[in-house]
């Protein structure tokens, strides 16, 4: 198979940044986005909660994950925008993952490649 022309950008970020992340994506003309509600932890490993005196260790924290697939040429500018939009500067701001994507196919028409994005 030839080298992938598309990249999936996954960005885990804090819920309160959603408005800015979404707005940034609109501003730089990313047409379609998917947002997941996810739970997880990084190095920090959560916190302690108390119910009727009983301690409960909570190590999975709720975050959001943005998933978009874009042409390789647009990846850097999108990553740069995401860093600005999702960052609060505190611990737990999240991660960005870049994954190669073999192809994109639109279900309604069967179009492939750049036309399907």
């Amino acid at each position, binding site marked *: 198979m030839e080298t992938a022309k598309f990249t999936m950008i996954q960005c885990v970020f*804090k819920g*309160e940044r959603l*408005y800015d992340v979404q707005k940034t994506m609109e501003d730089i003309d990313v047409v379609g986005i998917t947002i997941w509600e996810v*739970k997880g932890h990084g190095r920090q490993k959560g*916190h*302690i*909660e*108390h*119910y009727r005196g009983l301690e*409960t260790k*909570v190590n*999975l924290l709720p975050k959001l994950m943005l998933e978009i697939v874009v042409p390789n040429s647009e990846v850097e500018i999108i990553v740069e925008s995401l860093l600005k939009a999702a960052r*609060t500067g*505190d611990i737990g701001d999240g991660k960005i993952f870049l994954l190669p994507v073999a192809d994109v196919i639109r279900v309604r028409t069967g179009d492939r490649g750049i036309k399907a994005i």
Partner: protein
Amino acid sequence: MNVPSSLTDYVSAGNVFFLLWGAVLIFSMHAGFAFLEAGSVRKKNIVNALTKIPTDWAVSTVVYFLIGFPIAYGITFFGKASDLLGNNSGYDLAHFFFLLCFAAVIPAIISGGVAERMKFGPQVLAGAVFVALAYPLFEGLVWGRFNVLGATDGWLAGIFGAGFHDYAGSVVVHAMGGWLALPGILLLKPRMGRYVNGDSRPLQIHSVPYVALGSWLLMIGWFGFNVASAATLPNISGLVAANSLLAMGGGLLSAVLVSKRDSVFVYNGALAGLVAVCAGSDIMHPLAALAVGAIAGIIFVKGFLWANEKLRIDDVLGVWPLHGLCGAWGGIAAGIFGYEQLGGIGGVSFFSQLTGTLTCIAIAVVFSGVTYFIIKKTYGIRLSPQQELLGSDLSIHSGKAYPEELI
């Protein structure tokens, strides 16, 4: 036992029972305040709302027993228990319980305005100061032992011919609560993310069913609030009940129309009508009460949008428009629709109503401004940004509303 003394016994017992019936109904309103706030905040602040309201209630009980009630009425409870009971079935104690239910409404109102970002201790402390001092001071001027605003032979009555009339507390309770809340809300500043770079970004409430439940509890309890303000059984008035019903209907219906059937506005519109009718509920015609309530519903809907969108006051539950503005309207409305020419029973003065209402607002704003300012400068009133983002449930109570969902 001879007949007259046994009849007296029944009269005292009936009065005590009547007051306690009202008190217990108003007590249920506090469940209403709790759920109205719990529903109107985001998921991360539910536990805080549900913990603040009963804590404020308990603190109010203590400070009003020790300080507030004695200030307003000159009655203390430091004698022997048998003396407190007296020979009237403990009427003073029942009266204290009944009026405590009013006094404790003050922190419950404020709580909804400062929600989601205030520290726990300062909220409770400010509530205690208001219930111990600010509220009883004005209460005493209108209902209590100071012959100034309310009394028929008081200072204000001497000027305008009739004293300040506030039957069940549109001004004494609601305007006082709403205007005490305003300086706190302003000093606290808006919640993070509410207004960003000139944009208004509404922070969504998490539960319409909770808001509905809270509002229903308030509506039902309100009939104790207004009807039992008769204070003794022989003074009970069906007019008060009918006026409360019609004002509630008016507020609800005008909110339906003005807000285009927005459910949360509809539920608050009913409350706006009830807030406004308290003052004149014993002297107005039911159709006048309908009008007073309908206008209150419009004041709330328009006032809420004006305060939150235009003035950018982040009043989470709209307590200033609901209690502050509609309460003030209620006080003034009693001085309009109370006149015989408008179908009322008379014995009121428009200028007394206006003076009483403005006095309340002045006392509330100054008292609250000073109190919150001192607490802000010494201990601080607001959660840190990290605590606010995490939510007051976790940062103050180290637990969330639905622990089972932790995974």
